[in-house]
């Protein structure tokens, strides 16, 4: 397929040059000028406000026009005002938030009935991220004036930022829409609608709303700066050059950094981090006191692996705005980067050119994880380089965080998000297996395989691949080339399939970015993966190659619909219908019997709980007769195996666990149990399978000491000393972890045996003496020492004889 048929305009690269041009404008900015939200006409609603606005607005206007020196002088003059609210505004504008707060308190005492004062005080709390206090003040303002729009608007913002009750937020929004608003706030809200349309990729709607907003602003003689900024964003989202449009705003206000910040936001949500970085560099060049821009720049620099620059930017942001929790989180994270993470480059030993891979691991975990992570990452790079016809231009950086919240802060700045991995281009971060110690269902190897696929899909498409397509390929790779083959679909997704909740492919991005029900994100992941399995079946021969060609088309600016239609020859409705039909052929029978299957699984679990083993086995077998591919939590294979164990049916139990593993199950304890059963069987084939099970299990639970002990022993028995040495070395590394093995003498004894197998007498003596230093009475080690000592004597004697 030739992608040139769907060629679209490429994003001009002139954007990259804009930083230099902007240096001129920044010279006008006094150092003390701070970033400040516009007033949105807050002073226009009551007589007190209107009276004070005659003093305040000239200062504000100067600032909005980029005349920061003039604005600063104006605000300084207001410090002498006898009115505390004007003083508060002046302190605030001059970045003295503590004095502003004191003046606000004085203003409130002087004007206890003023909704304006309380509302502005609430705004000040919003600026310092104290959403609850802000919310309280907005409510107090509304008690004084139930129709005061700025207080309603403030309440909406505080509820949004502070994660307030959705019902209250909704009702506040409704009320706000019914109020008579001043033109400034009205324009601001119209522009919010434009942002929502842009974030939803509804560019036609955004275009109309933006044109209306421009007309309105012009009619009301309002500032066009925000309008122009969003016009630049619209251009950017349509792959046009936003810079000429931003220059129109800069002609009105040469220090207008918000335009670049706005562009940065949209570059971020469309994962174009390098462009985001450029936009934010422009922003801080224009306004070095734009603390939010410094923070965003820091976060983006971190995503681009520019750690030092990120450090500087985030510290710069903190120096100006010490209240932002995201800044504080990121500073803490940088401490983690500097103090506990270590970087190692691959291949080892180094070869010519830059490294292919860099691992950033916690230093406490490095000895356990490094070899497994490096091997798998290098393997995935090899597979993907060939499949996606891409030679990476920089080392791919892989970070594993032992603390989930560190990983989340690294990814999005704030904790509390349930993600496992995030890819930013040539860098991805993910949870270390130690972040999920209590869970049996985190397979870090699969997560790594998934994220590495994103590196290639993002780079191939120059970050223009739609979310669903990129996720779909990653899931497809997991299932078809990853460490645990086969589709692993959670029950919630089967339920969604049965309820016909799959979206049209043209709307699938919404399932990821604007989920409308609890499990929609995971449902969307699975749907995207299934779409690629379907495309693979549909396209038949060379399907893989054709999928890669589709990916390349995004680089040229093609849309999902164009790419799909071109590749499959179907319209989107036809594609959706064909996919649905394929789903029916794959899962129709199962989905029809899903309630029955669920009933049998639940009955099986209940029977296990009540120790009715035969009943549990019967229910599990009925469930398996309906669908035997389910290996997620509460798999019927595991119910059956447990029941068989209790019934003393060891051979059948082993068979059930084996099927569970063969179907893609990877829960640690059942697989360790399988391993033991296989080893008890003592046949060479069973031992080979046991080794294979454990090798795979390392990609799920590498911190499990039993796993390395058993595997190390097996390798020793199989005379594979180097592999055994690796496992016993990991065991030693694990001993330094909380909960790791503490009985070190047997590990050193095993390492001594490894050295013997490697014909290294000196090392063997060292290891056996280490074991005996820990445990002098350890008889097996004593015996080995004795044997080694006799051998040494014998060797010396032989040398003496031969010398004679």
């Amino acid at each position, binding site marked *: 397929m030739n992608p040139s048929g769907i060629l679209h305009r490429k994003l001009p690269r002139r954007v990259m040059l804009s930083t230099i041009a902007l240096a001129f404008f920044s010279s006008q900015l006094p150092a003390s000028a701070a970033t400040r939200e516009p007033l949105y006409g807050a002073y226009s609603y009551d007589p007190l406000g209107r009276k004070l606005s005659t003093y305040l607005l000239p200062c504000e206007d100067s600032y909005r026009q980029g005349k920061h020196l003039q604005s600063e002088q104006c605000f300084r003059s207001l410090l002498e005002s006898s009115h505390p609210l004007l003083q508060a505004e002046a302190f605030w504008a001059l970045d003295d938030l503590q004095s502003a707060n004191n003046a606000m308190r004085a203003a409130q005492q002087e004007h206890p009935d003023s909704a304006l004062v309380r509302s502005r005080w609430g705004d000040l709390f919003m600026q310092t991220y104290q959403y609850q206090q802000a919310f309280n003040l907005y409510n107090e303002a509304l008690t004084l004036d139930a129709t005061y729009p700025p207080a309603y608007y403030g309440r909406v913002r505080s509820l949004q930022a502070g994660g307030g009750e959705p019902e209250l937020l909704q009702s506040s929004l409704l009320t706000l829409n019914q109020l008579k608003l001043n033109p400034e706030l009205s324009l601001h809200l119209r522009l919010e609608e434009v942002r929502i349309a842009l974030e939803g990729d509804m560019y036609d709607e955004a275009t109309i709303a933006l044109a209306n907003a421009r007309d309105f602003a012009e009619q009301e003689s309002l500032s066009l700066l925000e309008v122009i900024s969003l016009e630049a964003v619209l251009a950017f989202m349509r792959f046009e050059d936003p810079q000429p449009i931003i220059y129109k705003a800069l002609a009105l206000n040469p220090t207008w950094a918000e335009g670049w910040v706005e562009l940065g936001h949209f570059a971020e949500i469309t994962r174009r981090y390098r462009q985001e970085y450029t936009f934010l560099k422009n922003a801080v060049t224009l306004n070095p006191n734009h603390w939010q821009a410094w923070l965003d720049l820091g976060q983006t620099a971190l995503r681009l692996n520019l750690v030092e620059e990120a450090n500087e930017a985030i510290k710069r942001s903190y120096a100006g705005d010490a209240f932002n929790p995201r800044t504080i989180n990121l500073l803490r994270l940088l401490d983690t980067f500097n103090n506990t993470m270590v970087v190692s480059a691959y291949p080892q030993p180094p070869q010519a050119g830059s490294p292919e891979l860099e691992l950033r691991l916690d230093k406490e975990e490095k000895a356990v994880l490094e070899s497994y992570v490096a091997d798998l990452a290098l393997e995935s790079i090899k597979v993907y380089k060939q499949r996606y016809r891409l030679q990476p231009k920089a080392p791919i950086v892989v970070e594993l965080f032992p603390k989930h919240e560190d990983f989340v802060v690294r990814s999005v700045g704030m904790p509390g998000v349930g993600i496992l991995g995030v890819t930013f281009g040539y860098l991805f971060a993910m949870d270390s297996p130690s972040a999920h110690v209590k869970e049996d269902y985190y397979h870090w190897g699969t997560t790594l395989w998934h994220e590495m696929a994103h590196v290639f899909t993002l780079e191939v498409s120059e970050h223009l691949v739609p979310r669903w397509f990129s996720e779909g390929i990653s899931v497809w790779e997991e299932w078809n080339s990853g460490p645990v083959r086969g589709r692993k679909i959670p029950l919630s997704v089967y339920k969604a399939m049965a309820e016909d909740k799959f979206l049209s492919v043209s709307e699938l991005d919404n399932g990821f970015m604007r989920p409308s029900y609890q499990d929609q994100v995971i449902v969307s992941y699975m749907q995207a993966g299934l779409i690629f399995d379907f495309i693979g079946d549909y396209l038949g021969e060379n399907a893989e190659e054709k999928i890669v060609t589709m990916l390349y088309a995004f680089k040229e600016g093609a849309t999902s619909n164009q790419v799909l239609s071109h590749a499959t020859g179907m319209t989107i409705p036809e594609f959706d219908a064909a996919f649905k039909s394929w789903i029916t052929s794959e899962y129709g029978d199962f989905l029809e019997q899903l309630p029955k299957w669920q009933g049998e699984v639940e009955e099986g679990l209940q029977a296990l709980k009540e120790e009715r083993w035969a009943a549990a086995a019967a229910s599990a077998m009925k469930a398996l007769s309906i669908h035997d591919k389910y290996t997620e939590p509460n798999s019927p294979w595991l119910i059956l195996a447990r029941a068989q164990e209790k019934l003393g049916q060891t051979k059948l139990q082993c068979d059930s666990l084996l099927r569970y593993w063969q179907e893609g199950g990877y829960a640690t304890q059942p697989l360790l149990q399988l391993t033991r059963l296989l080893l008890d069987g003592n046949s060479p084939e069973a031992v080979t399978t046991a080794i294979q099970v454990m090798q795979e299990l390392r990609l799920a639970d590498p911190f499990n000491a039993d796993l390395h002990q058993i595997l190390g022993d097996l390798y020793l028995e199989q005379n594979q000393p180097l592999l055994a040495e690796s496992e016993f070395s990991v065991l030693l590394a694990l001993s330094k972890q909380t909960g790791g093995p503490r009985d070190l003498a047997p590990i050193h004894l095993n390492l001594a045996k490894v050295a013997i197998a490697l014909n290294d007498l000196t090392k063997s003596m060292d290891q056996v003496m280490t074991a005996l230093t820990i445990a002098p*009475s350890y008889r097996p080690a004593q015996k080995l020492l004795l044997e080694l*000592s006799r051998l040494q004597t014998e060797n010396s004697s032989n040398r003496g004889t031969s010398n004679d």
Partner: protein
Amino acid sequence: MAIEAALGVNLMKSYPCVFFLRLLFLTGGILSFSPQAQATLYYVILEGLGGTATYTANFSSQRSQLEAAAASLPGTELKVFLGEEATREVVRSWFEQLKLKITTTDSLALFLLGHGSFDGEQYKFNVPEIDITGEDLHQILTELPGGPHLLVNTSSASGALLELFNPQKNTSQRINNNDTSQQALEELESSVLVITATRNGNEKNATLFGSFFTQALSLEAADLDKNLRVSAQEAFDYANAQVEAVFKEENRLSTEHSQLLGPEPKQFNLARLDEQQIATEGSRLAQLLSQQESVEARIEDLQRQRSTMVNSEYLQALQTLILEAARIGEDIDQIVIGIDDPAGEKQ
């Protein structure tokens, strides 16, 4: 030639279990292999009030494990206080009697299983009627002749006792396995070895430590030096690690931090893990066991001197002693195989 082949044995195979057997020999009824040779170890268990059925069962289970551990050690005299009889008065009275009986070569291990409290000034262990105070425990243990004696208090707030038993030092100067310098040991020579479940009196949640500590006394996994005995240090280390692992696994802030204070915890054995074998006095086996005991004692002496020696010299000396022990062990094994297998089938 490969070393493995040269050794003439398949080192990958496990060793016959006979290597793990420890032997005792009878000398006029006295089991001479006891770490406190010729002496009595008084094993005293005080089970406090459980309050709820769950705690009561838990403490009872810990007590059973301690009783089994006591039974495993030769030369041990067990005393258990529990239920309504475990009052302050009864306990104090029993210790008054013990004072008259205990000799200077004897030692005592006192285990407190139950709930404790600390009001900021005084530690109390909950028993029927009047609670036993920290001062009571201090008086009981410091007035006893002999020693060193061991106090293991697994209760909540038990760390309050640390200051009481070591008033000249603050708790940061605790002596643990990593700080057994001669000077520190000498300073504490006459004091009591104290193990607590918490680091101070303010850790007041019910503890996990006791369950793991008592569990350790029958576990090979706790016997890190492989001498088939579980010392106070080993049981402490095992329990401490298990408690840490539980809090880590549950992603909770730890509410207890166990402590160990006092001299030579490695030398204070609380249980043995092997089966007892009998050797007739004057026999070759008895001689070998005696030699083995002597070598092990020399190894222990050497270990104590480690910090004063150059590492290479230490390792050389250790290797020499261990080789000696290994040769004796080999001779013992040959005799034991003969005892176990009179028909000589294993030979």
